[in-house]
């Protein structure tokens, strides 16, 4: 089938602002949007820039707006979006070139969540693992699936308005550690989440939950965090 692909282009060395370039190419309905981009880059326009790595929905590097919604280019098929495809960079981030955005603010917010296990207690008597029951693990299982693609954070109106807002991806990371029974850094993280750029700015637009390629129930995770902040309980 013939597909018409409209892509946002911006070259910082030449352009004062971005513009759209339209390409017409042949593609299979089962091709992924990433294949379409590779085709254009390989055959028509070698200067087209976008991030990709694993091409299998694992690394999280190719999040972009596809027909107006944040998606991973390697997880969306042509038949899912039709013959007219518009591809744009994520919203709310500086565009460095074409579909490549500056992820620095996103990762700065991620770092504020202390994204690693905090445990200063002595090791168990046998000196081996800190055991956890399946129920304890289930409490944060969902939030371990995050691949830091930023599709959620850049679909959030609160983040569009202010990139100091930690954003849903940071909250998912906080959730992953706060509800881990082996972690001891919950109170410190909850203090950070209570700041003005924390969970209070989540106004439940659900764009994040809709955008997440890992189908994490992000708004529910944020609800867990809000409840923990109000009640002081992690159960």
């Amino acid at each position, binding site marked *: 089938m013939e597909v018409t692909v409209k892509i946002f282009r911006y070259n*910082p060395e030449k352009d004062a602002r971005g513009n759209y370039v339209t390409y017409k190419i042949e593609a299979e309905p089962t091709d992924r949007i990433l294949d379409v981009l590779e085709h254009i880059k390989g055959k028509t326009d070698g200067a087209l820039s976008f991030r990709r790595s694993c091409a299998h929905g694992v690394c999280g590097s190719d999040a972009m707006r596809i027909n107006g919604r944040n998606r991973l280019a390697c997880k969306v098929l042509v038949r899912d979006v039709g013959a007219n495809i518009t591809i744009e960079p994520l919203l709310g981030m*500086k565009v460095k070139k074409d579909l490549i955005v*500056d992820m620095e603010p996103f990762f700065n917010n991620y770092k504020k969540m202390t994204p690693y296990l905090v445990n200063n207690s002595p090791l168990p008597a046998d000196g081996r693992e800190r055991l956890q029951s399946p129920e304890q693990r289930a409490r944060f299982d969902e939030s371990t699936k995050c691949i830091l693609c930023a599709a959620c954070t850049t679909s959030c109106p609160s983040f*569009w308005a202010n990139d100091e807002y930690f954003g849903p991806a940071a909250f998912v990371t906080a959730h992953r550690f706060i509800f881990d029974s082996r972690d001891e850094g919950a109170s410190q993280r909850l203090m950070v989440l209570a700041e003005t750029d924390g969970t209070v700015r989540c106004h439940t637009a659900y764009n994040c939950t*809709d955008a997440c390629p890992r189908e994490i*129930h992000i*708004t529910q995770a944020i609800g867990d965090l*809000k409840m923990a902040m109000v009640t002081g309980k992690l159960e």
Partner: protein
Amino acid sequence: MGLKRNVPLSAALGYKGQGPFLAFILHRVGGAGMAIFITMHVLSTFAEMRGLAIGDALNKVYTSPPFQIFILFCVLFHAINGLRITLLDIFHAKLMPHYRKIIAVEWVVFILVFGFAAVSVVATAIGRM
């Protein structure tokens, strides 16, 4: 180097969020509508106290049936949607997985209540003619 991160209103409104995003936008439209109404009300009262003609003009605008229907939309949507948000916040563990169905219920309730209110406004306006 790079384009600024600003998200223009057109780009924000053009984002293809689903039903919940529409509710999020309409909630803000409702809030803005009520703020406009209250401001007009305060200004018109103030102007009428001073005998300024603008007071009467403002009064005519916000007592007109189209404006009343608009303000009913704002108040009712804001209230019903606010109730939905509050319930989801409080009972999030149980209700969040069903948020799409809950929004569908919200629309049914809203359409019934708003429809009844709008018809009453129109019937009253026709009765006055």
